[in-house]
């Protein structure tokens, strides 16, 4: 406030002006500037390729003409495309379900081990997850090898007929799901273990006093307390499993007769090997809106629960 007679500012106004920081002193500006390198990296490595693939998906086969949603229209008429959709769903849902169940089961076991010996168990159980999947899948490929399967060799020792692990459609699907579960279950295990450790012991004590048995403690205490972690892990794993490439590519390359293809491997087959990049881009983008919607609903639920807390 300016005093008309003296031309000086009021004491209160001067103090307020002193308190207001400049643009580069504001916390939000500093936070933005510190996050800027990450924002730029994401824009360059994630946003640009994503937008470019959307652009590619709107072009014709020779990439000379804009066809709008023509590639999707074409895909929806293909029998193989719907087979790939079905297989991707079977693959992702089954694999995520088993990973979550095995992860939860093993996490409980590890949680029950005394702290002293727990570290080495955690380390050993994480091994499948820390090996690059292309490498570990190659080892699995040798175990399933059409001519030299190590499993079949063991079966032969006990008089069991050889199993066509990768030559029969059902066995091949089983094999790719098995390897995905083997690779991904440790991630669930470690996340659930962390969640289990954060459940306050007093809740279990209170439940015990109320006479809750093991199952009731799990159902009414553990699972509700782990709910957010379970949702985030399942969401994350579903997205990653739907987008899986290396396991299927190394193990079966989509065969036999296309019956283990998932979106990424079929997109690669069409786009890179078959020279139809726009169609390949369309296949890889097909799941984007579905997974995006799923992510929005799950994350919204998590926010709601966070607010309730």
């Amino acid at each position, binding site marked *: 406030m300016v005093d008309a007679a003296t031309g000086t500012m009021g004491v209160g106004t001067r103090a307020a002006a002193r308190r207001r920081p400049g643009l580069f002193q504001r916390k939000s500006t500093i936070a933005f500037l510190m996050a800027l390198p990450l924002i730029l990296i994401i824009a360059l490595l994630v946003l640009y390729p994503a937008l470019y693939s959307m652009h590619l998906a709107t072009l*014709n086969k020779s990439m000379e003409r804009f066809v709008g949603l023509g590639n999707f229209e074409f895909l929806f008429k293909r029998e193989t495309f719907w087979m790939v959709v079905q297989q991707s769903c079977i693959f992702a849902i089954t694999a995520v379900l088993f990973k979550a169940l095995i992860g939860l089961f093993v996490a409980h076991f590890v949680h029950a081990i005394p702290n002293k010996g727990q570290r080495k168990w955690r380390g050993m159980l994480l091994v499948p997850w820390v090996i690059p999947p292309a490498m570990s899948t190659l080892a699995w490929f040798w175990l399933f090898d059409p001519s030299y399967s190590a499993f079949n060799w063991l079966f032969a020792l006990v008089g069991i007929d050889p199993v*066509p692990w*990768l030559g029969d459609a059902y066995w091949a699907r089983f094999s790719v799901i098995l390897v995905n579960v083997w690779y991904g279950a440790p991630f669930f295990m470690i996340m659930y273990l962390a969640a289990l450790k954060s459940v306050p012991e007093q809740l279990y004590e209170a439940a015990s006093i109320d006479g809750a048995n093991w199952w009731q403690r799990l159902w009414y205490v553990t699972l509700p307390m782990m709910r957010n972690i379970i949702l985030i892990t399942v969401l994350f794993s579903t997205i990653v499993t739907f987008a899986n490439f290396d396991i299927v590519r190394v193990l*079966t390359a989509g*065969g036999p007769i296309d019956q283990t293809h998932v979106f990424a491997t079929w997109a690669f087959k069409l786009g890179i090997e078959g*020279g139809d990049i726009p169609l390949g881009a369309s296949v890889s983008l097909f799941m984007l809106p579905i997974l995006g919607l799923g992510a929005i609903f799950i994350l919204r639920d998590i926010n709601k629960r966070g607010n309730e807390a």
Partner: protein
Amino acid sequence: MNRTRVSRRGVLKGAAAVSVVGLSAPFVRGAHAAGKLAVGFWDHWVPGANSALTKLCEEWAAKEKVDLTIDYITSQGNKNLLTIAAESQARSGHDILAFPTWQPADQAKNLEPVDDIMTELIKQNGAVNGTVEYLGRSGGKWVAVPATAGSQIKGPCSRMDLLKQHAGIDIQAMYAAGGPPKADAWTMDAFLTAAQKCHKAGVPFGVGLGQTSDSVDSAGAFFQSFGATLIDAKGNITVKSDATRQALDFYKRLIAVLPADVSAWDDASNNKWIVSGRGSMIMNPPSAWAVAKRDAPQIAEQLWTHGMPSGPNGRYAPFLPYFWGIWGFSRNKTAAKSLLMHISQPSAAEKMVIASGGYDLPAFEKLTTFKTWAEVGPPKGTLYHYPNPHNHQTLSIAAAPAPPKIAAQIYTQATMTKMAVRHAQGEAMEKTLAWAESELEGFSRS
């Protein structure tokens, strides 16, 4: 403020002085006066084959004063296809790249025409076969030069002892080294009967039915031997024909006597099959024999590479040529063409054939009789018939004669092997044909 004034007279004096200095200076030709050239060749399976090509290129670079960079790009995991796709999108990268079979047609618009090189090479080395022309020419122009390195025929490679013992066939006498084949009796029926007998003896033929190139190439040659084409040269779908039905029927009977999991075979499976001693025949270039020579010499001594059986439409062998192409965006096309001429000379081709132990195959008709193929062994002469020296069979590629862009889809999607497996697994003939027709309609889109 002082300002220096530039007069017309002053400028002329300066220019004259610079010219005098320039003309009177000694002429210096730099080590890389002809500019830079970046080349991406296919990374050869055979140890030592890359170094022969490097040596040829370095000789040329030293003579032509070119700053040459060579990269060897593997086809493992389709790294070479990814490189081609990336460079074509970015319009930047190497000047010359090795292009696998279908890529010249696919990238035709981005490649520098090489009619001048091909006219000269054909005059010098003889004609190329129809498959090379089908794949290397686009829009009436040559868009790539057939490469010696990587080109191969995937004919049968048989165990002489097992065929003689179980099927009563003396394949070495039929395809004797040094002379034309005496293979009139080597027909599809004879092949099938031999496969059945060897299966019964516990040493089945190993013909892949997976989705990789060895399996697709074999299927292509068998289909063509029956006259079965999925799409004709004009782009019409012709899959529903009696010839295709015959080919599928043949495959159904053949699959019954092949190993149970051939539908999961990749390009390494057939090699392992023959090297293990469990099989009596595979369809492969001499790499399997070369591996056997190193790892299982007693098996290598019994391997003989020979021609395909003939079918109602003739005798077709699976041929897979590689090409060298120059990108349209290359900044040194003159040097690139000069290098391609140099490495396509007969002496250069022979050096590559020697270094690859006979695996590499020049595409020109006068270059199929190098000493290497007649002399390598054991057994001596095992590769004599590998380069088809007597034009005994038609060298073909699966999915031809469909327009190359459609054929490439048929090839990479392994439509023929899938048809064979579907039908052999019990799907009705007409249902398999209807499925194939629907797939082919999809491949034909522009």
